[in-house]
């Protein structure tokens, strides 16, 4: 079962949680849910049209709940109805964080990055909006 949720992104400096502190001070986006927080940071920090980038992602449990897994990740342009031409490779780092390699935003405009979080049989979808010029 998959639930969709479009949530607000808090500026990194204003985030109450320390989730994603290992990602650095700047350019960290956070999505807060009642039982967990997802933090991510693009590398390079600026999305550049047509250039390959990577996301570093951290999931943290809240209120005593365990951190869920990141099951899938993708991106698409809702106004144009298409996604990326490249499949990101999701892998887990030794410290428990995640990285998604091989992403490319090939068109200027509004992109949505979708994070499917939970277990393979039950996920919740988080959506982050990014603008590419």
């Amino acid at each position, binding site marked *: 079962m998959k639930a969709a949720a479009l949530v607000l992104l808090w500026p990194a400096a204003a985030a109450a949680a320390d989730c994603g502190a290992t990602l650095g001070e700047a350019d960290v986006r956070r999505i807060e849910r009642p039982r967990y927080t997802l933090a991510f940071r693009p590398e390079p920090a600026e999305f550049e*049209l*047509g250039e*390959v980038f990577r996301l570093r992602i951290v999931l943290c449990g809240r209120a005593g709940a365990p951190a869920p897994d990141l099951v899938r990740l993708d991106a698409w342009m809702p*106004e*144009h*109805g*298409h996604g*990326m*031409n*490249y*499949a*990101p*490779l999701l892998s887990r780092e030794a410290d428990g964080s995640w990285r998604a*390699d*091989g*992403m*490319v935003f*090939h*068109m*200027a*405009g509004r992109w949505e990055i979708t994070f499917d979080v939970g277990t393979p049989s039950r996920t919740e979808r988080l959506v982050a909006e990014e603008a590419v*010029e």
Partner: protein
Amino acid sequence: MSIARRRLAAALGALVLLLLPGPATADLSPEERTRILRHGPWPPPWRPDGGNRLSGDPAAAALGRALFFEPRLSADGAVSCATCHRPELAWTDGRTRSVGLAPMDRNAPSLLDARGRRWLGWDGASDSLWAASLRPILEPGEMGGTPGRVAALLREDEHLSALHRALPARAAPEDETGLAVDAAKALAAFQETLVSRRTRFDRLRDGLAAGRPDAAAGYPADALRGLRLFVGRGNCSLCHAGAAFSHGEFEDVGVGYFLERGRVDPGRIGGIDRLRASPFTRLGRWNDGGDARPTRHLVARHRDFGLFRVPSLRGVAATAPYMHDGRIPTLEAVVRHYSEIDEERLHADGSRLVRPLRLSAGEQADLVAFLRTLTPE
């Protein structure tokens, strides 16, 4: 008012006109300016191809130039790279569809500005300029050559052999395939030198970037109206993006993919298959380095069927006929195609990029006038 005063007033008036922004560029909104600036500067900075050890090497470019015009690379000794890419035709052949050893299904694209492209060929079957140079040599219907034929030329022809010996040494053994790859990399080094010249659009764009009030001086008014359509209501710059006027990927613009006798051109989906079947890619043993991530992460999807690479628009007025199969003869007809595009012919799943623009005759003429300013005079 005396004649002298009238002359002085006229001179001052002309001076004021020169110092003020031209009425055309003054009308540009900040968003329009931002979008126009994204189409430059030109030329882009030179970045050697890390996958080609001969990239940027003048000796390699000299060998590549000799090989480019060498018909002995082909099976019948009559077809060279220059057969389909003629310098005097902006490195195209001017035909609807090219003819090598046999008639082909696609139009020959210009080689100008091919350096730095991620995907080459209308279907992107090659991920480097050197691999794209080797493919037609070995294709049976194009030049029908073999690695052995290429190797024999480099070993036995006195002139070509001397040019080859001048190249930087390499660690790999000089077997036939290795020599053919050397030839392809030299051909790429030559093509890297084919960069389109600056245009009237570039002067306008750079003038805007510098905040010069006379940025549009000499730029045709109809072309400026066409440029505003291009970056605005036409949405052309979504795909024809950046300084090269192409995002370098693949789209469906309702041109169609049926060939004669019930054959179809699968476009990008076939290109991905050919890329993955080739030993000559950025993931293969013949590649020298560089960034292989796009090839590694490339994914084939159903919607890739019938998509073709978005071409650069630089020099477009000199590269007729147009589209992957050359079915549209003139720029005017290309603009008319986008104005009246049949949405029923768009087959890419879910894509809502292309819509009929419903341009007036005047707007179509303006867009053509703009496109002509992308070609050096």
